[in-house]
């Protein structure tokens, strides 16, 4: 009986997704039209389009093989399966065990692969252009997507979308910087994947600027209908994944009883999670009446849970921000490594100093060490403003501002930089296992910055860029000095001020 119920719920999810996807596309079009001060088509226009396309004859291009004919159905099926795995309307679905984020990405990836194949199959030039552009965009978007999935999985402890949604909804995650960054990245990836405006334009009529549309130019009739429906499904899928991971608090998905039964059948882990969830629930709403089956939630315990939650949250947040700033410094180092024009390099150097100053100021605030603000101010003033200005003047007076420095292969340098970051993490993290986490992260990141600075000094010939490398190296040492709490002021100041 329970299994049948679960099957029903799962089926309802699949049908709902399929039915609602064109509506969502219509909504997006409507909003877009309104923003452009047009009236726009009606919300159900996509349904009408689909109906019209389904009724039309499918015209095949000359030389189209079976691949061309099969592809629309494959794309539709694969996308539908992927959409069915996302807990759009309910968590704990029957098939949610297979709803792994990586599996979903792989499904969408195979849909894209089929589409590119079909576009090349007919042998028109636009098909080829579209396919190559699509694959290039995908090669940038997919690694980013995997990074996001991994960083979310690190927090939730799983790549199962259902588990992640559960975790996000019912446990004290708190403010997480990595999640915020992940959200931004995810939105960018979603824009790229759904052929939206900065990357592609679904409504374009100019073949030269098309990406996705160029690939489906030759499709018509029911084939086109399948592809359109798959595109709508994909859009809905991305939006609901964003909802599942990032906005689950606002949405509070239904927890199906059937899901619970299935979950308990799978083992004790879920059951334990449920007990924890109940605890969390009453921790969040202490005044509300306890759930009937709620365990021994006495007031003292509730208060303790609240306190614990808040503590974890605050510590997590402080740690996250310092982690982000330190990571930002490493990123800025890579940006410096990448620049081959002197002015751009100097700008990035200033940015580097700004990130450092922000990081030091943050440390000052979480360590309650007001003297660190002085260090931050010095770093900001000297390294962020005065030195870059002086360097710009120097570059201008030497007349080398138009020169492009010959760097020994930027790609190679960047690879070496990545290797150095890996090296410093591998050296530092095991060694500092006992240090407190903030200092630990800072030291490891600082070593990366130091090593990248050294690399930069080694690979550049120009004196100005050597100075830039050296200053970034010093910024790294400064980061380490502030991360190690309680260093005497004199040391910190003499690091912060350019020697």
């Amino acid at each position, binding site marked *: 009986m329970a299994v049948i119920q679960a099957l029903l719920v799962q089926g309802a999810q699949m049908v709902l997704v399929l039915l609602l996807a064109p509506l969502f596309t219509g909504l997006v079009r409507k909003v877009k039209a309104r923003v452009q001060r047009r009236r726009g088509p009606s919300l159900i226009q996509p349904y009408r389009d689909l109906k019209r396309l389904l009724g039309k004859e499918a015209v095949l291009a000359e030389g189209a093989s079976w691949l061309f004919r099969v592809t629309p159905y494959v794309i539709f099926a694969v996308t539908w399966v992927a959409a069915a795995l996302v807990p759009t309307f309910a968590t704990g679905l029957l098939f949610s065990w297979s709803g792994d984020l990586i599996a979903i990405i792989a499904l969408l990836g195979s849909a894209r692969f089929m589409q590119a194949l079909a576009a090349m199959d007919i042998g028109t030039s636009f098909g080829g252009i579209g396919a190559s552009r699509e694959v290039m965009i995908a090669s940038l978007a997919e690694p980013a997507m995997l990074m996001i999935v991994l960083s979310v999985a690190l927090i939730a402890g799983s790549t199962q979308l259902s588990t992640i949604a559960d975790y996000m909804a019912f446990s004290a995650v708190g403010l997480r910087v990595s999640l915020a960054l992940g959200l931004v990245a995810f939105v960018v990836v979603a824009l790229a994947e759904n052929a939206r405006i900065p990357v592609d334009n679904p409504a374009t009529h100019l073949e030269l600027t098309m990406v996705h549309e160029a690939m489906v130019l030759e499709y018509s009739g029911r084939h086109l209908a399948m592809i359109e429906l798959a595109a709508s499904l994909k859009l809905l899928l991305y939006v609901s994944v964003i909802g599942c991971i990032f906005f689950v608090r606002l949405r509070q998905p239904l927890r199906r009883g059937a899901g619970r039964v299935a979950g308990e059948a799978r083992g004790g882990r879920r059951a334990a999670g449920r007990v924890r969830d109940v605890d969390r629930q009453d921790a969040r709403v202490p005044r509300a009446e306890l759930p009937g089956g709620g365990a021994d939630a006495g007031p003292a315990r509730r208060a303790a849970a609240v306190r614990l939650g808040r503590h974890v949250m605050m510590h997590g947040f402080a740690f996250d921000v310092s982690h982000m700033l330190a990571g930002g410094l490493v990123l800025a180092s890579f940006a410096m490594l990448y620049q081959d024009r002197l002015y751009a390099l100097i700008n990035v150097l200033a940015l580097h100093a700004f990130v450092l100053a922000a990081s030091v100021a943050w440390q000052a605030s979480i360590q309650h060490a007001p003297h660190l603000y002085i260090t931050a101010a010095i770093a900001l003033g000297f390294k962020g403003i005065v030195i870059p200005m002086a360097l710009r003047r120097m570059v201008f007076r030497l007349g080398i501002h138009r020169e492009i420095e010959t760097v020994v292969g930027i790609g190679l340098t960047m690879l070496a930089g990545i290797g150095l970051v890996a090296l410093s993490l591998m050296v530092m993290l095991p060694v500092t296992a006992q240090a407190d986490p903030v200092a630990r992260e800072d030291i490891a990141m600082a*070593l990366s910055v130091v090593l990248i600075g050294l690399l930069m000094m080694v690979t550049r010939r120009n004196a100005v860029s050597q100075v830039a490398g*050296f200053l970034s190296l010093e910024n790294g040492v400064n980061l380490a000095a502030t991360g190690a709490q309680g*260093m*005497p002021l004199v*040391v910190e100041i003499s690091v912060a001020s350019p*020697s």
Partner: protein
Amino acid sequence: MIELAILLIPLVAAAVLAMLANYRLSARINMAASFLTLLAALALLVDRPATGPYLLVDDLNIVFILLNAFIGFTTSAFSASYIAHELETGRLTPNYLRFYHAMFQLMLFGMNLALLANNIGLMWVAVELATLTTVVMVGIYRTHEAIEAAWKYFILGSVGIALALFGTILVYLAARPVMGEGADAMVWTALMTRAREFDPALLNVAFIFLLLGYGTKVGLAPMHAWLPDAHAEGPTPISAVLSGLLLNVALYALLRFKMLLAANPGAIAPGPLMIALGLISLIFASFMLYRRRDIKRMFAYSSIEHMGITVFAFGIAGPLGNFAGLLQMTMHSLTKSAIFFSVGHVAQVKGTQRISDIAGLTTTHPLLGWGLIAGVAAIVGMPPFGVFMSEFLLVSSSFAQQPVLTVLLVLGLLLSFGALFLRLIGVAFGEPRGPVGPVTRPTCRCSRTSRWC
């Protein structure tokens, strides 16, 4: 009080000298201040001050401090005659001299502070101060080569010092769980007493950074590139101070951290690392000696070689090894500064630093020529001189522990012996070349003061 005097005399002198325009008076004040510092350092022998939270005098650094003060004094005496000649030839202007004197005392202050500091952070700051002051002094001639040398020195020295700071921070991190937060976890004496409780893995990583960082300042082989340039292009008194003192200060810092590491049973033994770096420096510098054309550059490589020997000796450790290292370092400082004094005069007399343009010194300037010969004989380790004693001690003590490495050591010693004498013979004997007139100012009076030590 006395240790404060050692610090305050150079600091006050630097402030006074920065304001004085008269270079003759400045030179005298420079000498007087250095002499007073020497007296204060001597007083340390009689009355050793108690250890404070920031300053420390113990058996190890008292040797360094005395040596520092003594060579500071002899160099100030030498520079008085040297700069007069530089003024006449127009290489320096009185304005630069004012700067020069102030910087000289500031540098002595930095080095004394580094030696006296009882705090790893303070010591680092002091070494950095000494580095920066010598950077501007190396570039004081404002020629293209001098600026380039100063630049190279600045960049490499700063990178080294930055790595050393990273190491210092790591030591602090290792100490913090045991000693608590704040400046207490950076005090040498406190660190030494509880070193065995520190996290050994962290100490290991820290020592690698310190070895690379301070090793750059010592001039050990893979990181030595700044040293020959800085020695060759700066004023000769600065070359003498660089070789005789600054290298020692960096070595002293390294030794302190080595002691810290040795006090922790779980940490790696620092000895083999130091032995390896020392041997590399020694053999590398010995080969490089054969290809030098600039006389000051040649002696700069000789400094690398001797630093290699000293580091090797401290790496061998044990009572004999440590004593040999200390003796070697002292003798090298004394002899090398004396050699630089006479080389400075030779360069002034001949108007060039190119070895091929200098010949027959013993016939044209007998005192200078024979003085140089004596100096070189001392530095290569000929019997009556101190370097012979220390090298003999080192070879005999290390042979018992590391016979193979000792063979390499002796090979390096012989190589450098051959190279230096090969060049010396060309310079001191043969048909005189270049100007034959007397030196414009009385020479050698001061350079002899330290030769026979």
